[in-house]
């Protein structure tokens, strides 16, 4: 993005915007195509027989052969890919071999679970991570900094599988503070009519407050765990961005002018550190949205991570390709969003655009 730098020539503004949009669309299309090609190829070279997932181990040869042809596996690879691509372009992602439902239907079912978990997690991670990072930067080298560093280190290195089980043991089994694995208790399962698939939102909109509390007590533990992991990352990054800003001359100037210290930290410095932080948060969010397989397994959370892993293990390629495309779209979407936020936060970028 180093071209068209000067802001002159107002007459060319509209075509340039169009040109930018066209280029963006082309990039996105190319990214998706590349993603599809790679995923498709990986799916075909893994030493797993996709027919097995459909017919099982016991099927006689006639059944096996028929399904082999039905799945189009008798055609050359490029032809299989071409057929798939045509279908995708017309909005047909095919059917899952395993669940026997349309991929779009499957994803519409599993993705809200992951979306809800990831959103709560990133909120926790951001709300806790940024103040901690700022605090650590301000008290650089002192006890507070060390505490934040150790917390971050544990967050990075402890296996989430183990932390998850430990969390369940303490907060669910011993203290009874939170509800156990799953998204909601059976008792409330049918009192919430799914509209968005986000149970917190659905139950709140329908005024089912008892159900809302139950959903909340189910989600808070896995979300806190995932939030803890993103907090570890966000606080480390905030700390280093803040250290960078606090060493700038404008901070010294502000101090000389007698601006209160809290204002210098929270308004002047953090505002400038916020620009790169947006990318950090967006990327953390994107990785949470992929679905965390281990967390979803421990907490029996029926989300995208479990779906994708299960599909991969059974060579259910339609499901794998569909989920990969979704994840790709999330990454592209969040990148665009953080670009947009840049323009809001950083006047320099705004002027360029």
């Amino acid at each position, binding site marked *: 993005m180093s071209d068209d730098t000067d802001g002159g020539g107002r007459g060319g503004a509209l075509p340039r915007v169009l040109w930018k949009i066209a280029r963006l669309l082309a990039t996105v299309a190319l990214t998706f195509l590349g993603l599809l090609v790679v995923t498709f190829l990986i799916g075909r070279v*893994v030493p*797993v*027989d996709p027919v097995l997932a459909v017919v099982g181990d016991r099927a006689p*040869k006639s059944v096996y052969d028929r399904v082999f042809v039905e799945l189009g596996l008798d055609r050359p690879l490029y032809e299989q890919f071409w057929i798939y691509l045509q279908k995708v372009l017309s909005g047909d992602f095919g059917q899952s071999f395993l669940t026997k439902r349309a991929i779009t239907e499957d994803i519409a079912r599993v993705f809200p679970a992951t979306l809800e978990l990831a959103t709560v997690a990133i909120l926790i991670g951001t709300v806790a991570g940024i103040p901690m990072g700022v605090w650590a930067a301000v008290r650089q080298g002192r006890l*507070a900094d060390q505490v934040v560093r150790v917390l971050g280190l544990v967050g990075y290195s402890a296996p989430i599988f183990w932390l998850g089980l430990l969390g369940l043991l303490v907060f669910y089994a011993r203290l009874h503070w939170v509800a156990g694995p799953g998204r909601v208790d059976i008792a409330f399962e049918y009192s919430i009519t799914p509209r968005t698939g986000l149970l917190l939102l659905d139950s709140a909109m329908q005024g089912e407050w008892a159900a809302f509390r139950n959903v909340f007590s189910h989600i808070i533990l896995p979300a806190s765990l995932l939030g803890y992991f993103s907090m570890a990352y966000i606080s480390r990054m905030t700390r280093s961005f803040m250290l960078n800003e606090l060493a700038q001359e404008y901070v010294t100037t502000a101090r000389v002018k007698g601006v209160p210290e809290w204002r210098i930290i929270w308004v002047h410095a953090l505002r400038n550190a916020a620009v790169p932080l947006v990318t950090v948060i967006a990327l953390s969010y994107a990785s949470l949205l992929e679905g965390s397989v281990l967390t979803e397994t421990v907490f029996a959370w029926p989300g995208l991570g479990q779906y994708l892993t299960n599909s991969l293990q059974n060579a259910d390629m339609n499901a794998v390709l569909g989920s990969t495309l979704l994840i790709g779209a999330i990454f592209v979407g969040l990148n665009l969003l953080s670009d947009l936020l840049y323009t809001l936060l950083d006047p320099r970028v705004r002027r360029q655009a």
Partner: protein
Amino acid sequence: MLHSRTLLAATVAVFALLGAPAVKAETPADTLIQAWAIDDIISLDPAEIFEFTASEIAGNSYEGLIGYDPADVTNIYGKIAESWEVAPDGMSITFKIRDGRTFASGNPITAEDVVFSLTRAVKLDKSPAFILTQFGLNAENVDDMVVQTGPDTVQFKMDKPYAPTLVLYCLTATVGFVVDKKLVMEHEQNGDFGYEWLKTNYAGSGPFTIREWRANEAVVMERNPNYSGDPTPMARVIYRHIPEGATQRLLLEQGDIDIARSLTAEEIDAVRANPDLKIQEGPKGSIYYLGLNQKNENLAKPEVRQAMKYLVDYQAIADTIMKGKVMVHQAFLPRGFLGALEDTPFSLDVAKAKELLAEAGLPDGFSVTMDTRNTPEITGIAQAIQQTMAQAGIQMELIPGDGQQTLTKYRARNHDIYIGRWGPDYQDPHTNADTFARNPDNSDDAASKPLAWRNAWDIPDMTAMADAAVLESDPAKRAEMYREIQREHQQTSPFVIMFQEIEVTALRSNVDGFIVGPSFNDNNYAHVTK
């Protein structure tokens, strides 16, 4: 430090306020909640069901013509059929349909439904269809082979006079379950006999109905209001997909579920020690074995095959690694089957194995690989075997892999040794004889590829013996034929048969009446109370 203390206090307060109401839960009194890994379900259509979980669900929501007593499988009784008669020439069986029974939809169960269900399964030709087509049925002739002969009689014809027990046991399999013709055909599209609809819906007559299947999430079953037997004490049975054993145990201990179905050996020990919980066990038909590929020149030597059977510490694995989830069993027919052989001639004997290896010209052993599914239990067994094999100089390298991955390799005969688990398809001895002791064509492009083929074991004589046993109508003689095959198989085969599975379920101590049967469609909760 003031900040941090405030922060901590605030966090605790938030947890306490919002989380506190979630106190120890109990499951509703009329609802049975089970935790299991239900991701193996690919269909709810009896013509296609072949997986453990789906078989169990079908066993509690559909009915077949006949059934057997899980405690004594030789006791076969009529369910939808009132009685049956084998033709004098043994080429057909005629069933009389019981009067006055209905499907969950309220439609009566008629002879027409029975004919429809069996012909439908043959014509759809899904994985389990061979259980019916092995009697000479196919899509073209089935309309003449399964026919209605009177208002309430159905005749099932065959191409040979098969042993009646074989036919009857095959009809107890899920593929023989009777579906509601009227309801299914309302949903037919493009001549699919309602398959697209039924694979995610329900049209049966069992004690429970299937209300909902959410893949990888839950299956919800409800009491069938039109069931012809006694209404079930439970109004609802819910399967929750909880893949992780440790999580299942936590839920069970807390009382959030009533039954945990897939605890690992470690968790079982903990459950045994807890007075609020109890363990229920039942032998299953599944067999754990090693398959030695005869394409490997070392494994093809008879002495090596024999030696390997002396290099497994059977009892130690059953007791310490599997902790009661298996029992030592060394013949291909599991206990409980007609003609089962209970001899266990092999135990760990390194000296004897070394002798045999020396006879084979391999006094220093050899190197070999074993494809191993990466589940904790299979890996544990494999490592124990690796250790004892090494004592006789056999260097065994374990190649870990995902289930489908190792299976793909095994099916292509590209393995050295495969550690496998095989469950019978129906309750008759032929199901296992067919795969362990029959190999009609050992060529690479053979039409049928039983386990004997997968291990490239060419056995024309034993195949003929197994074929003869299928046509023996006297059950006592037939049982003896199978025992004879197994005695030879036990000594000479490239299968190190080690264990028979015991299904171990953990229940809350107030749950009574859960039946763990020999096969998964025999697991029954129609009489469960709590």
